[in-house]
């Protein structure tokens, strides 16, 4: 039986953890933006835009994140002939730059995982934001209109802050779920934390130790994220009379 926690394993796991955190931060931001965007389009007066946004939400919410990630990473490139595929996804200046910047040998797979997670979580967030806007008192929107707010001003000063504030507890849950979903990127050769855990198990045959470490680390990540987002929530509601029950 080999030693389980050698310095190499520790640095491998730390690199994986860094990538997991990076994936979480990037996809949290992108899916938040996508969610607000699509959620707003769902409120559009134009019926065509509304139903297009609705279709987006239903499609990307109802297909498992894992399938979406595999699709963008492995299936999508196979649409192109071999030489074009090599150039488009692996061997071009952007990918080379990404490799030097991030240290990933195949950055396309990480991008594909981010893309899949963004669409999936974004679709969920769009629905949460729309529901959040739905809870706003009608008078507030009517007052803004009466005061002469245009569509953009209404969105920026009323719908965006109000909707996000109302939906924030649900958004928190979804973002933590998204953090856990980054583990699915291990499936498409992204060396994030869960993948490095699996690699360490293969090397050392010490499954129980490494799985326990993984569980503790993910629990910590969830707890820290919940704490941070809770502080954001409190900040969002600062100076307001209404106190949200837990």
């Amino acid at each position: 039986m080999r030693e389980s926690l050698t310095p190499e394993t520790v640095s491998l796991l730390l690199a994986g953890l860094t990538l997991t955190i990076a994936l979480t931060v990037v996809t949290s931001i992108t899916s938040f933006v996508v969610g607000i965007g699509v959620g707003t389009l769902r409120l559009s007066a134009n019926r065509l835009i509304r139903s297009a946004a609705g279709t987006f939400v239903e499609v990307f919410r109802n297909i498992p994140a894992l399938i979406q990630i595999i699709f963008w990473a492995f299936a999508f490139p196979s649409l192109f002939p071999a030489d074009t595929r090599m150039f488009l996804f692996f061997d071009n200046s952007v990918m080379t730059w990404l490799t030097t910047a991030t240290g990933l040998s195949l950055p396309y797979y990480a991008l594909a995982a981010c893309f899949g997670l963004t669409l999936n979580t974004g679709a969920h967030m769009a629905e949460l934001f729309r529901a959040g806007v739905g809870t706003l008192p009608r008078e507030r929107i009517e007052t803004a209109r009466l005061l002469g707010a245009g569509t953009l001003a209404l969105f920026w000063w009323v719908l965006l802050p109000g909707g996000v504030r109302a939906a924030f507890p649900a958004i928190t849950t979804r973002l933590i779920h998204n953090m856990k979903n980054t583990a699915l990127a291990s499936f498409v050769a992204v060396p994030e934390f869960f993948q490095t855990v699996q690699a360490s198990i293969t090397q050392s045959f010490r499954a129980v130790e490494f799985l326990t470490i993984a569980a503790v680390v993910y629990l910590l990540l969830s707890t820290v994220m919940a704490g941070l987002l809770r502080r954001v929530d409190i900040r969002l509601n600062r100076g307001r009379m209404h106190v949200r029950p837990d």
Partner: protein
Amino acid sequence: MSDQIDFLLDSLPHLLFGFPGQRPGGLVMSVLLAVAGLGVGLAVAVVVAAAQDARSRSLRRLADSYVHLFRGIPLILLVLIIHQLVASGPILGLNNTPLRSAVIALVLYSSAYQADIIRTGLRSVPVGMVEWARVIGGSRWQVYRLVKLPYSLRVMQPALSGQGITLFKDTSVVVIIGVAELTTTARIVLGSDVGNTPFWVATYLTVGLLYFVVAFAVSRLALRGERRYQAGNLVRSLAIPTAKTGSRL
């Protein structure tokens, strides 16, 4: 194009039902896994939710840690942990079957989410109603079973069906231990043959479509059920369990 269609037509039965001569697989297995996880998970969750509101402080702590633990780690990790425990057998001493590991992991995972839903639902029961039931002589257990649970089930229904759909989609991660559900079947169908590369897109689009159809259909059905509850006379729909409890208490 025609070879794409041929490939899909050949593999569609496998994606739907699995491979002949083996236990059911493909989409059928995905649905079965979700149903097992939800059904058993619900039973576990009722107990956990009761423990979360128990009078004993240590029991409450235990139930809270249960929920916190199984909600805090990725399902794919939980599946691997359970499989490892079951396979090496230090704790449960069961045989090494991926299917059993998958079901256990799904039950633990789902029950943690369901327990939270149930607890929230139970708290929505008006205090007056519970007190009333206690005053006319109901024991704590009777009030729980005959008043709180039936009343709050209506409140919980949307969240529970949402959780069901989520669990159905989440069953895809058991591919990591090779249970022959839809995602695993897709991987088997495509195999490691480089000649199959042109079929990747079509196969995964089909797999996505199959998940979508089931998840979307269930969410629409759930919505219809919800609307019926809301459209119906609230008092009438509540009167059924209350009348029953009245006569039985």
